[in-house]
């Protein structure tokens, strides 16, 4: 049964009350106005966000502390082939484990993270920085080694869980290497000692017995 008392306009008045609440409430607090005024304010990015790669360095030296050894695996595995690496050679032409040139072309990088997955030295990781807009393609959007190198503390800032895991991994790796080296050293030492003992024994065998002396006199 239809309500016999329909008040035209009542619905609009109720609606206007709701809108007025919205209007007034938008000045108090963020419940009714949660716009973030970029670029004055920025939304915190989640930890797993990724944009373009960067190189991690340990310690203070941005060039010498690079974990990268210029093995060029990432260059080979990159699908759009945006990584360019030139390894450093010393004066004899021997490869030092350090890159002179490490360029990433952001114009074509597709953030697939394959370079991160294949790197054996945990030296290239994904950054979440996204403010790369510029007016030129080549001058600003091809990043060089100095642009890409960022300290481990930065890595901890943007991805704490991942960074701690990586650090633990590297630490474990170092420990293992140290243990292996120590064991090898110990084995070497043991071998040396055994060899020494053996030669000492051989020497001891070579010396003549004391009662039989020569009667030539």
């Amino acid at each position, binding site marked *: 049964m*239809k309500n*016999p*008392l*329909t*008040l*035209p*306009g009542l619905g*609009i008045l109720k*609606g*206007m009350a*709701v*809108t*007025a609440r*919205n*209007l007034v409430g*938008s*000045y108090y607090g963020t419940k*009714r*106005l*949660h*716009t973030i*005024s970029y670029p004055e304010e920025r939304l915190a990015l989640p930890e797993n966000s990724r944009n373009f790669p960067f190189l991690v360095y340990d310690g203070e030296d941005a060039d010498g502390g690079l974990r990268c050894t210029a093995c060029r695996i990432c260059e080979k595995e990159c699908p759009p082939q945006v990584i360019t690496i030139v390894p450093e050679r010393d004066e004899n032409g021997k490869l030092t484990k350090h890159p002179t040139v490490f360029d990433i072309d952001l114009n074509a990088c597709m953030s697939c993270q394959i370079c991160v997955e294949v790197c054996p030295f945990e030296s290239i990781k994904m950054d979440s920085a996204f403010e790369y807009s510029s*007016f*030129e393609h080549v001058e600003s959007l091809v990043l060089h080694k100095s642009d890409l190198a960022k300290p481990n503390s930065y890595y901890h800032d943007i991805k704490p869980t991942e960074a701690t895991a990586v650090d633990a991994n590297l630490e474990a790796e170092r420990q293992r290497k140290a243990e292996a080296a120590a064991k090898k050293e110990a084995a070497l030492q043991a071998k040396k000692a055994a060899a020494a003992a053996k030669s000492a024994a051989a020497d001891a065998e070579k010396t003549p017995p004391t009662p039989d002396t020569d009667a030539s006199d």
Partner: protein
Amino acid sequence: MLPTETQPQTQRIRPALNFAARRPWCTLALLIAAALVVGTGVLFLLNLKAPGLLTAALMDALSDPGQAPVLLKQGLLNYLENGWSFAPWMLELTSIFMVIGTLLAVFGVIFALTSLVERKVLARIQNRFGPNRVGPWGLFQPLADAVKMLIKEDIVPTGADKVLHLLAPIIMLVPALLVLAILPYGPGMAPIELGVGILFFFALGATTEVGVFMAGWGSNNKYSLIGAMRSIAQMISYEIPLFLAALSVVMLSGSLSPDAIVSAQSGYAFSFVPHWFVFTPWGFAGFVLFFTAALAESNRSPFDLPEGESELVAGHMTEYSGFKYAVFFMAEYIGLLGICGFAVALFLGGWHAPLPWLEWIPGYLWFFIKLYSLVLLAIWVRGTVPRMRGDHLMGFAWKFMIPMGFAIILAAAVWHYAGGGVLGWVASAVIVLMPYLALGRVVSIQYPASRRVYRFSES
């Protein structure tokens, strides 16, 4: 030229632009200081022609703030007569141009402000900021809009009727501006005191329809034509409730002149309730009717079917770009301001103060305060209700508002002839309420707000 290389002209002013962009407040202060210095210099030089008359004009105006604009104008005319020996016909001409200039300046500023205020209020209703980048709180946004409209290419479609296409925005703008000339801004401050002001206003509203048709037809676009037809049908239908509501007021104040109508609303009952028509039962209903019909006349939400973007792009304004679109935009807003000004004059007591102890605020300020409250109400309604459907719109006008209009006239007559007693008020209220409820029931049965039934689908 590549986009990165700048044109030679901008190279010359680039340092100034950079400074203005980096230090906006500083630039603003510098500009205001420069304007003050130049203005004082000019005033000083002008004063030399007839010493003392300019300051006398200012003093006159300050002594009686309620009539300040009129006294200022008279003082300036006096100065021109004595200092520059203007002939009487030159004085008349100057007086006319002063009034026109002031009106255009004031309403230009109000128009610019309203376009910004509308966007910001609508945005806040919709849980977002409005434009807030261009100046502090987005105050220079209208300037940016104006520049944008001016530098856009003026596209005239190939098959369009060039004469019609050009004349239509002009024919829409002129009546809107003419309405501003008869509004009573203050006591004795209507620029033209027409004895038949109400009739003039309705005649101008009717003339606007021809402009809409020219816009729709001249664009050689079937959507523009449909939008123009809908707009004309809507405007014609909603003019009748507008007439009827105004008619009740004209009946009771005995005159078609807005000045006389405002004077009929002077005084206070019980020494604090003003005699405005909106505080009577028929006046309140009449005001609601007038305001709703005014929204429909200006093609504003919820009656913006002719210019609904999701339906007809922009209706009769589809093929207009650049400055012509700006003229349409201006015509719509200034039309809204004019019709709200009329609502203020007819129902809200014009330039009268609402309370006796607030009468020290000048009349013209009260007029603009009330005018702007109505504009804010219109913006509020726009942000609240969705667009009305075409047949609902016409049904509402013909089946609800016109009978309500007749009821309001009857109620006004009963109220008047009862002589102001309580019986008169009660009877008048009943005469308004009964059709309201009955028509409400009729309309809600005919246009029910029910779940939509699809004829050819299963669920």
